[in-house]
């Protein structure tokens, strides 16, 4: 199917089904129940799941296949966002040209930065990409203010030209981004008993693009090009003496993954038409590294899982506060309740970064293959007990 073998096709299909029914799957708890805060089925968060999924899928094409660890990938995401917002300002509120320009601009940026950075490898490459990204951040934050909006970020205004659209709506507001009349922020709600499910245009638009991006990444993984990239990671010397020039391969991988980042940036601006320099800060680059490692570097599904998990943690764990903890542990005797709450408290709310750091360290130490490897180990244990049980397809290895 679609030129994929059976295993990859079923993986793609499962992801497609999960993505399509995400509004149901992510809202398993009825409104108003104690567990409702664990629901993640609201548009803003779901959009972030798929957009950061795209970002991580692209990063994985570079890091997972070639082993080149870029610490500056957020720069391309930021560039994509700026390009998209400029299209909204100058052209029209249609997201299509905005996203296309975002991808192209990020691609050109990646070509320049990659061409220079890839002259070195190992930690030197990481530092070079980091230096470029920090430079972009510093420039966007200060000197390039006319283009980037500086500290406040780039925002839409009522007097933007929008030559193929209208500067203002009939009500005198700034128009919202849409796809040929479909407004990204439009949502329909489905109420079933106590459950409320939200179906958002922006989410489904981004989800379809994410599926396309995922499909493309599977094709790249299975292609001769993907094989060459893995060969680069494995033994560059042998590749050289086999008559292959590693540099254009790594550069192509770098540009492709930069374009994925630009796509994610363009989509982000399409959901919420503003762009800020903080998207390019090096911690943002670190975040995509975390996502990819957490999910499983070099695997197909890993980056998507990692992106989802981190964004879920960021949104859900950071919302839990001491009161909520007290209601959870109310069944314990008072003294014990307080003790348990005090022990958990540093890890929730504002402390979610601490949880993230610890989880990340544990993954790097004990599970270098990330969640996918963990899933395989579990499936292995499970499989030994029940040999007839088919394995969960999402935990299948990529290779």
């Amino acid at each position: 199917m679609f030129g994929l073998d059976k295993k990859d096709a079923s993986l793609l299909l499962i992801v497609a089904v999960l993505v399509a029914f995400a509004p149901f799957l992510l809202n398993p708890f009825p409104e108003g129940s104690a567990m409702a805060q664990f629901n993640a089925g609201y548009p803003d968060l779901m959009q972030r799941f798929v957009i950061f999924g795209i970002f991580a899928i692209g990063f994985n094409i570079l890091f997972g296949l070639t082993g080149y660890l870029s610490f500056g990938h957020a720069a391309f995401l930021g560039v994509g966002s700026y390009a998209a917002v400029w299209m909204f300002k100058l052209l029209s509120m249609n997201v299509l040209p905005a996203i296309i320009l975002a991808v192209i601009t990020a691609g050109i940026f990646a070509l320049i930065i990659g061409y220079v950075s890839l002259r070195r490898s190992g930690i030197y490459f990481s530092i070079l990409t980091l230096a470029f990204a920090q430079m972009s951040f510093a420039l966007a934050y200060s000197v390039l203010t006319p283009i980037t909006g500086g500290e406040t970020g780039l925002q839409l205004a009522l007097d933007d030209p929008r030559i193929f659209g209208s500067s203002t709506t009939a009500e005198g507001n700034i128009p919202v981004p849409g796809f040929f009349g479909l407004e990204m922020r439009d949502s329909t709600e489905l109420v079933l008993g106590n459950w409320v499910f939200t179906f958002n245009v922006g989410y489904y638009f981004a989800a379809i693009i994410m599926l396309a991006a995922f499909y493309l990444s599977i094709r790249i993984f299975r292609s001769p090009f993907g094989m060459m990239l893995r060969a680069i990671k494995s033994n560059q010397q042998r590749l050289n003496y086999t008559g292959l020039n590693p540099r254009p391969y790594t550069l192509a991988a770098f540009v492709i993954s930069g374009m994925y980042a630009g796509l994610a940036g363009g989509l982000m601006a399409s959901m919420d038409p503003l762009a800020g320099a903080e998207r390019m800060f090096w911690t943002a680059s670190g975040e995509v590294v975390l996502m990819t490692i957490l999910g499983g570097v070099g695997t197909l599904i890993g980056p998507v899982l990692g992106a989802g998990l981190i964004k879920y943690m960021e949104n859900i764990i950071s919302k839990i506060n001491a009161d909520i903890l007290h209601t959870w542990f109310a069944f314990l005797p008072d003294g014990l309740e307080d003790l348990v709450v005090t022990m958990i408290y540093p890890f929730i709310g504002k402390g979610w970064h601490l949880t993230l750091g610890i989880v990340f360290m544990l993954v790097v130490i004990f599970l270098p293959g990330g969640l996918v490897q963990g899933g395989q180990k579990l499936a292995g244990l499970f499989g030994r007990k029940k040999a007839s049980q088919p394995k969960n397809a999402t935990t299948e290895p990529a290779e």
Partner: protein
Amino acid sequence: MDAIILQILNGLDKGSAYALIALGLTLIFGTLGVVNFAHGALFMIGAFCAVTLSKLLTLSHTVIDETRTDFLGNPLKVEVPYVYDVFGQTTGDAIIDWAVPLSIFFAIPVMILIGVIMERGLIKHFYKRPHADQILVTFGLAIVLQEIIKYYYGANPIPTPAPEAFVGSFDFGALIGFEAGQIIYPYWRLVYFAFAAIIIGAVFAFLQFTTFGMVVRAGMADRETVGLLGINIDKRFTIMFGLAAAVAGLAGVMYTPINSPNYHMGMDFLVLSFVVVVVGGMGSLPGAVLAGFLLGILESFASMREVIDIIPGINQVVIYLVAIIILLTRPRGLMGRKGVMED
């Protein structure tokens, strides 16, 4: 001329911090072969050692002063630091005033302990893993350390002043024969530079003149051979890590009066310190120190109004720009040796 001297002086304090952090990074990388992304966090913890000690010194208990009354006519309650009880008021005040320099003695054991725990507990297991894994796990550790500090000390910077005697500035220009009022330089920055110079000198002397240092230098040149000679490298690695942690920590302690410490200062310095290490040449100690000062001074020059007017924003990017140029033209950095970190 006076403007040039002023900019050089202004670059010295940041340059000192870069040099000290880069020195520790290089020691760890050169001996242990580990790329430590948590080194900035050690700098930050050092700074918070100073914060902690000043807080400890000002810990007070309430006493009722019968001789004075508040506006209601009741005896006045006053907070008396515990140090007063031990040393009396005058000495106690002096101790509180000198909290930052005193923190050096507090920070050295703390930092060595943290370094040793880090090395034994975590880094040790990553000697044989790829550099990418080392970067990732220490990056994770850096996040954890800074979040712990944030949890206990909050997100806001905590002002930690220098002793009264070093607050303020003096006319450095007048001292060296320039017109008065041209080169005004804060005392503490000069102290910081002198302090950094002493630490750097001490580290180099330690490596140069002790047997321990000789083994370490041999290990940096050729780890395997030294290992084969039957010298207990492991123990020395641990001590080296503790030492590097102490250097970073001391750099942090003394930096507190220049910039009020906050939980993310380590990360801010780390990125630049890595650039410094790479510019200096991975694995070269003199390179790290030289590049630290050079880049600090360069940054200071690029911040001059005259320069910014010509090339806007240059102060923000000059270090990165220089790093990129150096990496591309001199792949081994200013003083790097062949064969270090080359694929």
